[in-house]
């Protein structure tokens, strides 16, 4: 049986396909005009090291460990970021805050905090996981090094710098507050009594 296939049909179909013929001469010349005109257009190149562009507002760059307004660290060492990380790039070891050495409000703080930028895929799941907004991302993207070891960032590499009014931890919490008041944003700066204690310690 020959079924549906017939040569007549095939021929009919093949004749329906419009034949490819070269474009008219003047149309071809258009291409020459295009390249010539492009020479006088503004170039797209950005002279990178000298000239930098603002990144997008929500760019996923290097991480940062934030602080409260009095300088205490926001990180409580809960390891949720490390658990959320699909690339297993984060290592957190928590430590206990003591009366002599208070690093963050509440009981615990992140004693060891490492992010391995050889592994990190900048997906931002760690930022979503963080319950205290301790971990956020900056717009810094120049993360190249000549050494693999240098790309494992330690806590001190990641911590946000102390701004005016902040004190270098460890120091006690703002007098008369709990960790909840910190969390609610009621602490808006450091108290002189906090400084005295730290210098003593």
């Amino acid at each position, binding site marked *: 049986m*020959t079924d*549906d*296939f017939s*040569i*007549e049909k095939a021929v009919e*179909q093949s004749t329906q396909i419009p034949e490819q013929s070269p474009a008219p001469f003047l149309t071809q010349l258009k291409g020459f005009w295009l*390249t010539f005109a*492009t020479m006088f257009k503004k*170039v797209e190149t950005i002279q990178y090291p000298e000239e930098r562009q603002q990144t997008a507002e929500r760019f996923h760059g290097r991480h940062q460990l934030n602080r409260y307004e009095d300088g205490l660290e926001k990180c409580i060492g809960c390891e949720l970021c490390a658990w959320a990380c699909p690339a297993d790039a984060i290592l957190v070891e928590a430590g206990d805050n003591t009366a002599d050495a208070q690093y963050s409000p509440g009981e615990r703080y992140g004693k060891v905090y490492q992010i391995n930028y050889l592994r990190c895929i900048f997906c931002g799941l760690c930022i979503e996981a963080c319950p205290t907004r301790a971990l956020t991302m900056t717009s810094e993207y120049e993360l190249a090094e000549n050494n693999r070891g240098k790309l494992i960032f330690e806590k001190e590499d990641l911590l946000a710098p102390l701004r005016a009014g902040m004190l270098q931890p460890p120091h006690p919490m703002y007098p008369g507050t709990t960790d909840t008041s910190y969390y609610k944003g009621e602490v808006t700066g450091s108290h002189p009594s906090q400084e005295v204690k730290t210098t003593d310690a």
Partner: protein
Amino acid sequence: MSCNGGEGMSTAELIGADPGWIIALKGVLIFVICVVATLLSIWAERRIVARMQVRVGPNRAGKFGLLQSLADGVKLALKEDLIPKAADKIVFVIAPIISATTCFMAFAVIPMTGKVKIFGHTTAMQLTDLPVGVLYVLAIASVGVYGIVLAGWSSGSTYPLLGGLRSSAQVISYEVAMGLSLVAVFIYSGSMSTSAIVDAQNKWWFGVVLFPSFIIYVISMVGETNRAPFDLAEAEGELVGGFHTEYSSLKFALFFLAEYVNMVSVSALATTLFLGGYHALPGLGFTESWLGGWFTLVWFFAKVILFFFLFVWLRGTLPRLRYDQFMKFGWKVLIPVSLLWIMVVSTLRVMAQQGASRTLIIAFTFGILLLIFAAASLLERSKERVKKENAESLKAFPNPSFPIPSLTASVKNGTEEIHD
């Protein structure tokens, strides 16, 4: 042929009277010009193509990136020089040398200035003036192909071999068209000497008088130099690097040098044969005596740069041709057209020399045009007939009586049905 002024000596006689030290000086100068032109043209090409692609191109090494090609050259020289185990060592080493030397040699007969003084000695900026100068250039260009073919063959590797073969077929095919396009120039100038041809263009440039020859020459010079869109020999996407795939270090640099010097020398030849050589633009003839005649050098290089820009422009605009398209174009279009054109030119020339009347010449030209139109329409008709016949013959083919698998899949009501 025409007024040379001064002592009434022709360029050939002038150059013939050169003392040895001037010949040596000119030789060195030509070499230096070629090398510097290569360095600058690589830079210029990269910058121009970049601008055509909305980029800036190399701009780091030196002012405006001018030292980029020098830096690249130094880098190439410092690279490890590999010779593959399967290569034929002697030929492998000789091939780039052939390529590089021949392209410099072509420059020897190019007249770059009119009459000038070098340290008080009157001469012309042309190393030698052969009575068959243009033939010499063609011959040298053919020898240059050996460099490419031998490089491809001696590498002992597949891609270079294919690239070398492509390139030799290409250069040989396009040399035919190139040679034919030059015949019209010889007929009109009555000489094969480059300086005599330049002198013969005192009134009208041959690029205007012999416009079809000019076009054919320009196309075939691109084919001849293996440049885009005819760069089939090194088609990066198909043949890795073509004939120079296995080359590294200075040997590779020599091929690179050869390519660019070749470009400059075919451009120089085009300038000489079609754009009046070192002569000024019509109406600016008074500039030719500036700087004691040296200003003609500026005119010469302005025209060469014009051709060079054309090369770059082509590269920035056109995609590479397929091999069969390329060969078809060379053999079935360029060669027949130039043959026809030569016939027309020689007939017209003879008619003019025999003192035919103007009306006769015009009538002849008109007749030729009519013939061309008739041939074109006949061709179109026969094409259509062949197409129709093909369709008929396919229809006449009976359906076979045995079951055959279908080649077509048709889409009905959005679901795909495959017939078998």
